[in-house]
């Protein structure tokens, strides 16, 4: 029987196995090859909850989902077409994510009694044997066995041999999707250049997998996914975390300031600390502080000294920074706070994503203490967004919170990366020295650290500058002099001034654009942050179906772009999908008095395209009621 070749517009593959089975690597290698083939794509790894669970158990399952296609791909895909399961637990944990009719590739030796027990399958019979998988086409391969056999003559030890089995899966899928092996082979040679045996073994098994597809008759078809029509240019694949790291280093470079990063580890923010700590040769200071309070405080200290002070955290760690952020508001120093949101409240679900810290970002401090807020909309967009956060902080001497989340941080996509020369410059000038009109150490006219320019921004007067000696602090400041003041009118003036200064930023950020759709339509879907991909996909589909719905995605959440109100008032219905219990929707309602309606999912997961589409359809016209 001959194998036919089918063309597909998009495919979602999910690799699932035990933490030890190397599914993350398998997934990212397939991703790289796929990227090189010119597909658009989006990936999402899912790690087990913080603690490493015993091998073979459901909590121990680690998976990696890849969605790629010849069309624009903006989400990791709702349900997958192909599910690879290295053991019973992986099947149990992921079956619900496979579309009916989908393909299961199962490593049979992962379904022995031991594994079935570990996975807590009640029945004695393997799900591969009973008819529980009737709606799927299941391919059973004893991957472990084949791997061992093909490496029978390899000098490697038992464990090392075992570890090669993920390459079989990779090879097999390369065959299924007509992918070349080359880039993976190059990678393996490079990675194990000092461990020839391991390199060879992996490559052998990789090819084994490919040939298995070719020789066995089990598959009736192979698939081709054509190139996507991406903008011409040079691309790389990037995760939100890496994009954030790059954005920070770039902002330091473009402002010609040292980057000081003070942080305390916490999931999922920690990876930024890990990434930056490798960039010492860029003059990056990373300080692992004793806690979040010390972390943000150290960044404030560095900012006082003239550095780009940045701190990062997630969940409860952000709550701890509130007091110090308030100090930065009072000091009017630049400070960037990276909040990689995770499911809360309290410790919550550290490995799950959520958007529930927006209100905290706005109001999570004592007194009236306005700060700026910027939110990235995709893994790659973390670069530009965090760069913007730094620009605003440095050019407006104000704390800025960067509101990302776990989904963006861990997800990846192709990125048409910029070149240094294309990056905008960040304008920073330190207040120059005052030489006391010649005569030394004499007292010159008193220096006024809180005099402002037309943007209401004060001067950045750093230690080491003669004649600028001055004191700042958390007590209310007198206008201009910055001296301590309890004067009632001065306090009101300064409270309003700090707000005006924050609001003034709206003149230095782009106008809000419509991502997709028309001005003055029937319905607009307003989103922020990581919901971008799902919303864009849904709105795109609905418009193709002729529905009058547009998409506006807000990056600048505080202050809002100055044309936002007018834009929003051009629609009859305003729908606001969020991975929280309704936060942006409250801001829009109180700011603009528009009957915005929330669409909320609080499951530690991004919106699925299908479910969101349903919700939006139901929401259309609802506000009229």
């Amino acid at each position, binding site marked *: 029987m001959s194998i036919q070749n089918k063309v597909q517009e998009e495919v979602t593959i999910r690799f699932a196995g035990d933490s030890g089975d190397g599914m993350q690597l398998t997934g990212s290698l397939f991703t790289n090859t796929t990227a090189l083939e010119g597909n658009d794509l989006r990936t999402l790894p899912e790690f087990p909850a913080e603690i490493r669970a015993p091998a073979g158990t459901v909590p121990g399952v680690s998976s990696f989902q890849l969605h790629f296609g010849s069309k624009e791909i903006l989400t990791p895909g709702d349900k997958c077409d192909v599910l690879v399961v290295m053991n019973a637990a992986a099947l149990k944990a992921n079956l619900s994510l496979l579309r009916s009719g989908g393909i299961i590739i199962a490593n049979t030796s992962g379904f022995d009694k031991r594994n079935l027990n570990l996975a807590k399958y009640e029945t004695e019979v393997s799900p591969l044997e009973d008819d529980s998988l009737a709606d799927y086409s299941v391919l059973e391969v004893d991957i472990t066995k084949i791997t061992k056999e093909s490496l029978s003559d390899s000098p490697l030890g038992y464990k090392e041999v075992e570890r090669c089995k993920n390459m079989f899966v990779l090879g097999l899928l390369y065959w299924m999707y007509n992918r070349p092996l080359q880039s993976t082979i190059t990678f393996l040679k490079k990675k194990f250049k000092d461990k020839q045996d391991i390199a060879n073994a992996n490559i052998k098994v990789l090819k084994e997998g490919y040939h298995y597809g070719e020789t066995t008759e089990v598959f009736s078809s192979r698939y081709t996914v054509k190139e996507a029509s991406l903008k011409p240019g*040079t691309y790389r694949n990037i995760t939100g975390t890496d994009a954030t790291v790059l954005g920070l280093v770039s902002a330091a470079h473009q402002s010609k300031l040292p980057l000081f990063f003070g942080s305390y580890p916490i999931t999922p923010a920690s990876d930024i600390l890990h990434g930056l700590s490798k960039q010492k040769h860029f003059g990056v200071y990373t*300080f692992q502080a004793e806690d979040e309070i010390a972390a943000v405080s150290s960044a404030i*200290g*560095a900012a006082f*000294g003239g550095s780009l002070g940045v701190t990062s955290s997630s969940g409860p760690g952000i709550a701890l920074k509130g007091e110090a952020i308030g100090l930065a508001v009072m000091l009017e120093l630049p400070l960037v706070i990276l909040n990689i949101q995770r499911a809360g409240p309290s410790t919550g679900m550290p490995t799950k994503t959520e958007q529930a810290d927006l209100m905290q970002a706005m109001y999570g401090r004592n007194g009236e203490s306005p700060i700026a807020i910027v939110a990235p909309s995709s893994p790659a967009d973390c670069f530009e967004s965090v760069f913007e956060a730094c620009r605003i902080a440095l050019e407006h001497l104000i704390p800025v919170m960067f509101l990302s989340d776990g989904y963006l941080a861990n997800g990846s996509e192709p990125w048409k990366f910029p070149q240094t020369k294309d990056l905008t410059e960040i304008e920073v000038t330190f207040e120059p020295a005052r030489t006391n009109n010649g005569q030394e*150490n004499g007292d010159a006219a008193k220096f006024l650290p809180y005099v402002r320019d037309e943007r209401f921004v004060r001067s950045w007067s750093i*230690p080491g500058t*003669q004649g600028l*000696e001055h*004191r700042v602090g958390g007590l209310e400041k007198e206008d201009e002099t910055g001296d301590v003041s309890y004067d009632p009118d001065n306090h009101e003036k300064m409270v309003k001034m700090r707000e005006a200064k924050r609001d003034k930023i709206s003149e230095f950020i782009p106008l809000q654009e419509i991502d997709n759709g028309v001005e003055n339509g029937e319905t607009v879907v307003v989103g922020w942050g990581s919901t971008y991909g799902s919303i864009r996909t849904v709105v795109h589909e609905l418009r193709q179906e002729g529905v009058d719905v547009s998409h506006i995605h807000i990056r600048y959440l505080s202050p809002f772009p100055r044309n936002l109100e007018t834009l929003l008032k051009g629609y009859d219905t305003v729908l606001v999908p969020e991975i929280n219990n309704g936060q942006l929707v409250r801001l829009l309602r109180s700011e603009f008095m528009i009957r915005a309606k929330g669409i909320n999912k609080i499951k530690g997961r991004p919106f699925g395209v299908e479910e969101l589409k349903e919700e939006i359809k139901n929401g259309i016209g609802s506000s009229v009621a």
Partner: protein
Amino acid sequence: MTIETKITEHLKQKENGNGEKKYSSKDFSSDQDVRWCPGCGDYTILKQVQKTMPEIGVDREDIVFISGIGCAARFPYYMDTFGMHSIHGRAPAISTGLKVSRPDLSVWIITGDGDSLSIGANHFVQLLRRNVDVNLLLFNNQIYGLTKGQYSPTSPEGSTTKSTPFGSIDHPFNPLSLSMGADGTFVARTMDRDPRHLQQMLQRSHQHKGTSMLEIYQNCIVFNDGAFELFTDRKTRPREAIYLEDGEPLVFGKDNEKGIRLDGLKPEVVSLEDGGYSKEDLWTHDEGDKTKSYLLSQFFDAPAPGETQMPRPFGVLYAVERPCYDEGVNHQIDAAVEQKGQGELDNLLQGPETWEIK
């Protein structure tokens, strides 16, 4: 730092050579009126600091005072240097960020017993452990002054204060033992009422490379007057206080008639008059001997029954060299630059693997 930044540029325009300027103490007093209670010990400390600054050979603009919150913490406002009156207990963390990124500065932390040993105790011990090259002046008045008189972690057991009308129950910290327990590299004590010694200790603190922890007994005349009278009062001081000099025997008393010797691990007070013992028999102070320094820091609690009260030591109890955190961080950056060359942003942006879309 080998890497050129706006900061390095900015500092180049600095007038004439560092530390060459001549100052008088008044060059260090700001235009703010000092707002401590009349008779507060903080005044004399301020005076001594203002007197010492011109002596340390650092340009005024290169000096930064960072405080937390408290009466003591008002200090920076009165110094005509750079300064930050930050938030309660966090000065060590802020100073760490500043010193690491600006090793060229002389950073002074001003803190109270509540600021540093209550809310700020974590940052306090971490600072000592890391040995960041800053000077910490701990104004210990055994009370919360600014909030009007609650007991602090250094108040003696049984203190009746606003928050402990029936007497405090918790056992107080021994700040010097705590500092040694946190592996501090410079541990010293002085008092507001001995200006000369205070100045010497400020000098020593400045000279020490690493975190200099200088505890200053400071009288809060309003809420805890006389807490340290035994040591500060001219009459009782000779009996109750002992001044330490590196390499010198431990002698004290009005006419240095008493000394301290070590009987094995047990220190004992001996008389130098009754011919029983001479200076040679005494314990000679060695700032570098951790065990001895620890023993000295233990001249603190009331003596166990039968044992005699030891005099309270003033001076540098302990001083050793250990690599500083701030230096280490900067070395690591320099090393990375040496080894890999200064980072090329375009390489970083490009990453390990790229592809073309035509």
